[in-house]
């Protein structure tokens, strides 16, 4: 789900941005903050970073000894996206294998739905395999599926989440 987070951040302004144009300081801080926020794709605790919404406060700047840069502690609010166990979400199928399908949901690209967790759905082999149940409900590429999240995993190296989901339960499955 989407989260509204309020967090502290340290924005470092290089010395050459601190010239006589004192009024531009806040702009420089905001731009640096947005830049650093954009580079940091996601964190384990907060999920995927979406956008900065407001700058709540800018603290007193501290000059760093060696470089002459100034460090400003700021507090800002932003929007992030994170999946939680037990949450109901909708994803789009992008890959079908014999034993399950891969979905994407928002910024999360690696969501796995195993055939074990698709009650009554069977794999129908073919040039493009699909999953289908007795009532001819199909899980094919680009189908939107509503699922429940069993668990998530944070991949530090790739800085992204992976998730395992299930269709076990009422009102879960492909949506029209």
């Amino acid at each position, binding site marked *: 789900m989407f*989260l509204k987070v309020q967090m502290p951040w340290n924005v470092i302004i290089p010395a050459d941005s601190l010239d006589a144009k004192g009024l531009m300081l806040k702009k420089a801080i905001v731009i640096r903050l947005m830049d650093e926020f954009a580079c940091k794709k996601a964190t384990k605790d907060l999920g*995927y970073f979406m956008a900065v919404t407001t700058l709540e406060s800018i603290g007193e700047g501290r000059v760093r000894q060696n470089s002459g840069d100034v460090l400003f502690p700021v507090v800002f609010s932003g929007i992030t996206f994170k999946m939680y166990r037990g949450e109901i979400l909708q994803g789009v199928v992008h890959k079908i294998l014999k034993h399950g399908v891969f979905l994407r949901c*928002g910024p999360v690209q*690696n969501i796995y739905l195993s055939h074990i967790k698709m009650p009554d759905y069977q794999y129908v082999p073919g040039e493009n395999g699909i999953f289908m149940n007795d009532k001819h409900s199909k899980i094919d590429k680009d189908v939107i599926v509503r699922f429940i999240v069993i668990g998530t995993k944070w991949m530090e190296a790739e800085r992204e989440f992976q998730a395992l989901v299930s269709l076990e339960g009422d*009102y879960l499955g492909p949506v029209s």
Partner: protein
Amino acid sequence: MSEKGGRMFSLPTKTTPKSSLKSTAGKDDNSAKSKRGRKVQFGTEGSPDVNFSSPKSDGKFATPFGKGGKGEKIANGGKTHVAKESQSLELRVEQELPENIKCLMDCEAATILEGIQDQMVILSSDPTIKLPESFGSGLQYAKTGSYYTNPQSVRKVLQSLTKYGVSNSEICVIANTCPETVDEVFALVRSLEAKRSKITGPLKDVLDELAKLKTST
């Protein structure tokens, strides 16, 4: 070979090279799924059940993967038992969230992100300003997932459930799933089951109100 009363994943030893989920999935068409180079067998030898996590744990993969020493060194044949995890798949977001974080409904997020996108049209003339790479996919998801035109009214209607002990995250899941019946709410938001008798009535009223606020698509 089979895990007796297994509470955790059984994982093979770290002999497989590290590979991302995407790269092995194509080549590896048996029932193994790779995560960080470790393979998890989904009961190919006949056992239909899989235990993904200890019911006592918070259900995240991080728990069994992170510990790395609790009897996971079974190579290539780990059969595991199912834990009755469907019963424990309850939303426990509130317990995990620190105080400076609040859950948002998809429609609320869509409004905010669309506003930012509109401003970006003006700001994009300045090349130093950039948006996070997840912004586009997040915005698209928020828009497709939001069924209501007026997030403030939706929030107001759903706030009435808080006095019955419904948490903010449960309210967000209700708004995001746009349920039509009370049964659907209890089926999807399993953590509300405990309060079923208390909130069935108010929930019916809330759903009727929400139905009026839906966008007609």
